[in-house]
């Protein structure tokens, strides 16, 4: 760019209107002041925004910002004083309406004023650290109108009075209320808090303190809770309609404190309507309400509910499991437990929001009382036995699963899982051998569940039993195929070969089998040992069954389904009319207790006794005599002579089983001790006991005394030794 050209384009600064008029500022301000007046008088229509903005702009530009600002403060203050007076003059109900109307007016005016003074807001105010126009307008409204001596208290009282009336059921003008509250909020959260909220909370606390006192004296628990819930909802609704959302927590806290927290104990323990009453009567709605209201109380509202529920369940459960009447019927006993569990599951799910802490409380309660009765494991197994024998017939697969899952749940509560295992094995054996299982699927499903719960070891023997059953089927097929012709007319034989150790066999002497049977048995023995060398077979005659064809006195033909023992007895009568107990005992060599039970079922049944006993009576005596009952009759061709089936054990039997369980525990405890000592090498007594219990508690709770004995035994056998200096300390040898 050449110097010449540059000169041509030299630019003069923007030409302001040069101020010649010394009264410029005063005149301009008058125009603006007048406009502000007109705006407050609703006469703004027709004013030129551009002209006003330009005047304010030029005042700031010409350094009259200070005059403009102070003029604004003075004018606005004087307008607001007038407004304040007119609000103060409003009578009664009109007070709020007038205040609201004037507030809306002021707001609108303020926005207009801010718009025309925008340039001052933008440049003059930040550089002089003054309050921006909008904020200034709000501050002046607060100081001149809201905090005027005649308005401040009146406003507060009016608002609180309206809330009070609404609480008492009157309909108030919520729109107006919302508008006024919004105004207080717009003036700053401290204005809302100091001029309203703080007093509102105080008054509310008094109100609900009184009301709750009244209610608690006159209402039952359910009604009280309904009222409390309604009040709480009302307050929440009030906040959403016309209060600051931040008040929600504060006011609900007040209601919660006054209506719930202060009366918690009384509400829970209220006679005839408290928590226990609701639980007993399954009052889901009331319970749900109680839960939801108490949950709101910060310091342990639910804790009280949970504690009372827990102690009630424990009491109920303890009563149930220790009631001697209940011990008579194991199936009913377990069913009641299940019902109790169902009842509380339902309460927790319907009323207690599936609260985990409540579920835990329920579980720990069950664990507590189920183990109060040492026979619980046996009874649960009996319950399963009952279901798997007959109870599940015609029930869908899903329902079977439901029942089994419930059983598993009870099983989980058991401390002595090994005792359950013992019984379960016995009961399963009987079901399998008697062919009494209803559903193979159900049986196996339960085994799988036990396996997932307790691991492979727990169920390996049970599974062995199923394997034996299957193998035996194949063996019998082979036996008949290879010896079919040779067997001819001899009685058909079905043998189940049971692996020693898998089954709960009691060592029992084989009874004398009838000659007809003995022959075919021997054939099977030689067949089996011929295919499986190196094995030993012994007959478990106490566990078998037989089908006999019998013809009675008047020619009635029946097929009798009996046990092996019963068969041995009945076969004797093919060759004799009348036999004494002694003769039968000699001929069969059945152990006395079994023989007595066997004769009882043959001769003492009320309706269809196969044998007749002399003298007639329930019990079998040594000198009783027996003969065939010629008058035997039955509508059915096939008659089942029930042995006294798997049942709850008698007291001595129970003792015996327990003893066997204790014996079984010994090696497990020893194994645990050795495992622990192997890794730790040196450990003191208390720690061994603690660790052993920890390792075994999934199966049973080992008794510390027993553990001590096992330690002694291990010391004797030189697995462990005592430390020479500290007798409490053990060392691992080997």
């Amino acid at each position, binding site marked *: 760019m050449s110097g010449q050209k540059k000169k041509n384009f030299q630019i003069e600064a923007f030409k302001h209107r040069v101020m010649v008029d010394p009264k410029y500022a005063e005149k301009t301000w008058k125009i603006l002041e007048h406009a502000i007046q007109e705006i407050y008088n609703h006469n*703004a229509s027709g004013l030129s925004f551009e002209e006003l903005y330009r005047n304010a702009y030029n005042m700031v530009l010409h350094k009259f910002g200070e005059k403009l600002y102070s003029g604004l403060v003075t004018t606005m203050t004087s307008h607001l004083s007038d407004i304040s007076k007119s609000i103060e003059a409003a009578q009664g109900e009109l007070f709020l309406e007038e205040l609201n109307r004037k507030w809306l007016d002021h707001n609108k005016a303020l*926005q207009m004023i801010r718009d025309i003074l925008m340039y001052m807001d933008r440049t003059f105010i930040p550089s002089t650290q003054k309050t921006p126009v909008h904020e200034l307008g709000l501050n002046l409204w607060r100081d001149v109108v809201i905090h005027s001596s005649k308005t401040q208290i009146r406003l507060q009282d009016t608002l609180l009075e309206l809330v009070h009336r609404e609480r008492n059921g009157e309909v108030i003008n919520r729109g107006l209320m919302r508008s006024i509250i919004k105004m207080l909020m717009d003036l700053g959260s401290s204005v809302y808090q100091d001029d309203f909220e703080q007093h509102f909370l105080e008054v509310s606390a008094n109100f609900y303190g009184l009301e709750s006192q009244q209610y608690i004296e006159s209402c039952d628990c359910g009604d009280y809770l309904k009222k409390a819930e309604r009040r709480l909802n009302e307050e929440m609704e009030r906040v959403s309609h016309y209060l600051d959302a931040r008040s929600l927590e504060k006011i609900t806290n007040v209601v919660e404190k006054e209506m719930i927290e202060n009366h918690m104990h009384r509400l829970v323990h209220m006679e005839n309507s408290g928590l226990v009453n609701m639980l007993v009567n399954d009052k889901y709605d009331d319970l749900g309400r109680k839960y939801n209201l108490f949950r709101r109380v910060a310091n342990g509202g639910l804790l009280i509910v949970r504690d009372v529920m827990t102690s009630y369940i424990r009491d109920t459960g303890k009563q149930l499991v220790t009631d001697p009447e209940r011990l008579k019927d194991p199936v009913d006993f377990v069913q009641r437990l299940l019902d109790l569990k169902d009842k509380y599951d339902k309460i927790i799910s319907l009323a207690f929001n599936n609260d985990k802490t409540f579920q835990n409380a329920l579980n720990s309660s069950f664990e507590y009382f189920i183990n109060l009765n040492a026979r619980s494991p046996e009874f649960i197994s009996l319950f399963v036995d009952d279901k798997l024998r007959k109870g599940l017939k015609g029930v869908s697969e899903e329902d079977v699963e439901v029942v089994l899952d419930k059983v598993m749940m009870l099983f989980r509560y058991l401390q002595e899982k090994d005792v359950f295992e013992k019984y379960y094995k016995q009961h399963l054996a009987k079901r399998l051998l008697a062919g009494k299982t209803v559903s193979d699927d159900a049986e196996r499903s339960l085994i799988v569940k036990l396996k997932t719960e307790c691991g492979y070891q727990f169920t390996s023997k049970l599974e062995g039993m199923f394997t034996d059953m299957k193998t035996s089927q194949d063996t019998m097929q082979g036996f008949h195929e290879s010896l079919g012709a040779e067997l001819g007319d001899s009685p058909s034989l079905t043998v189940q070969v049971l692996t020693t150790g898998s089954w709960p066999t009691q060592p029992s002497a084989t009874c004398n089998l009838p000659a007809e049977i003995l022959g075919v048995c021997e054939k099977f023995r030689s067949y089996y040992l011929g295919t499986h060398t190196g094995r030993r077979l012994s007959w478990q005659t106490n566990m078998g069954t037989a089908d006999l064809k019998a013809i009675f006195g008047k020619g009635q033909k029946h097929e009798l389904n009996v046990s092996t023992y019963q068969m041995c007895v009945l076969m004797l009568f093919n060759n004799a009319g009348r036999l004494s107990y002694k003769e039968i005992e000699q001929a069969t060599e059945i152990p006395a207790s079994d023989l007595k039970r066997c004769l009882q079922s043959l001769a003492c049944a009320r309706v269809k006794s196969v044998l007749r006993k002399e003298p007639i009576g329930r019990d079998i005596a040594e000198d009783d005599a027996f003969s065939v009952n010629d008058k035997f009759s039955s509508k059915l061709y096939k008659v089942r002579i029930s042995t006294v089936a798997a049942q709850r054990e008698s007291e001595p039997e129970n003792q015996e089983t327990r003893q066997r369980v204790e014996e079984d525990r010994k090696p497990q405890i020893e194994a645990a001790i050795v495992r622990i000592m192997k890794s730790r090498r040196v450990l003191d007594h208390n720690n061994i006991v603690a660790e052993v219990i920890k390792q075994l508690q999934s199966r049973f709770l080992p008794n510390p005394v027993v553990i001590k004995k096992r330690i002694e035994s291990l010391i004797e056998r030189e697995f462990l030794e005592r430390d020479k200096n500290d007798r409490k300390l053990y060392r691992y040898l080997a």
Partner: protein
Amino acid sequence: MKKEDMVKLISAEGFEFVIDKDAAMVSQTIYNMLTSPGSFAETQHGEVTFPEISTTILEKICKYFYWHLQFASGKETEFPIEPELTLELMMAANYLHT
């Protein structure tokens, strides 16, 4: 285009520019004029007179409004400013807060 979507801007010399309200409201000052709650004359008549802005400058301002809208929609070009207009344009921009 509806009438209420347009606004008339009048220069010191009385020259009228009818432009979209959207464009005009790029200026914060004009935005306030047209949206302020009181029924100011400008809102009522849909026109604004600028006795201190010359026709040349007002025309340039209107061009800027439309350039601004284009720029905002992604078309980023240069906005040419004639050297001899710059100062006056700047003062107008200051006045119009744009």
